[in-house]
């Protein structure tokens, strides 16, 4: 292959950019799920305390 650097660079960019977006999206989803679960737990706790009083 006489143009290997061009071909490899194109493939690295083409794989790297979707990989970056994919990993970023999955981290965002997981972080949102964790925060949502934490808020739900604190809301449930608050509701129980209010019912007790």
């Amino acid at each position: 292959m006489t143009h290997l650097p061009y071909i490899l660079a194109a493939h690295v960019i083409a794989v790297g950019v979707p990989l970056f977006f994919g990993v970023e999206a999955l981290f965002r989803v997981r972080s949102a799920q964790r925060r949502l679960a934490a808020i739900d737990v604190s809301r449930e706790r608050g509701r129980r305390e209010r019912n007790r009083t």
Partner: protein
Amino acid sequence: MDTSSSVAPPRSGKTLHRFANPGQFLRLSGKVLPWLFWSGGIVTTIGLVWGLVFAPDDWQQGDTVRIMYVHVPFAWLASAGYFSLAVCSVLSLIWRHPLADLAAVEIGPVGAGFTAVCLATGSLWGKPTWGAWWVWDARLTSVFVLFLLYLGHIALVRAFDDPTRGYRAGAILALVGVVNLPIIKFSVDWWNTLHQPASIGLTGAPTIAASMLWPLLFSAIGFTLLFAAITVARTRAAVMERRIRGLLMAKASSANEERAVS
């Protein structure tokens, strides 16, 4: 006069709003997302390995034709992504589809990224083939304009304190920018360009050899599935983040009320 018919939303609007339910979207996307990611990853890997290792060299361009297996899918997805942005804008402007605004905001950066990859890989293909990294020919310039439209949309939807105004402005920009899509498609026919004309069309038989067409199709389908997976995952995250903001604001306002009562 029947007043109920004038008040009720059109049937298509009702159906859209049923699918726009955030809870339903989260349930559905949670099931679909792993399939999209895994199938996209596997199909893309097959397409890229096939194109890089097993597909033949081109008689004229030699081995640089292997850049086609990444450049062409990204070029298609750059336009397809913008078209999906325009569809979301129509849904947002006409039916006030609540998910369409969030989807449009999330499609923008992904579309801009994919268009940047299209431009970069095209440049890497152009240098050994044409002897230049960049030429201001009609196809390259119109794709560059598409990239600028994406950047404009990203900036505009985030430019207002009231997000709804940003969504409306972004939707109008997206719809105005749609005029660029046929210009991109037909630029190689309308003007005398350095860029080659299309080898694959919807109406005629492809002018590309089957040994090159198959890896290209695999690569294109794989990257399309990945684009869809990334967009759905980002929209899913955006729906949850909006719910978090809403819950935190409700919590803060109820705490304020309790403080005021005591």
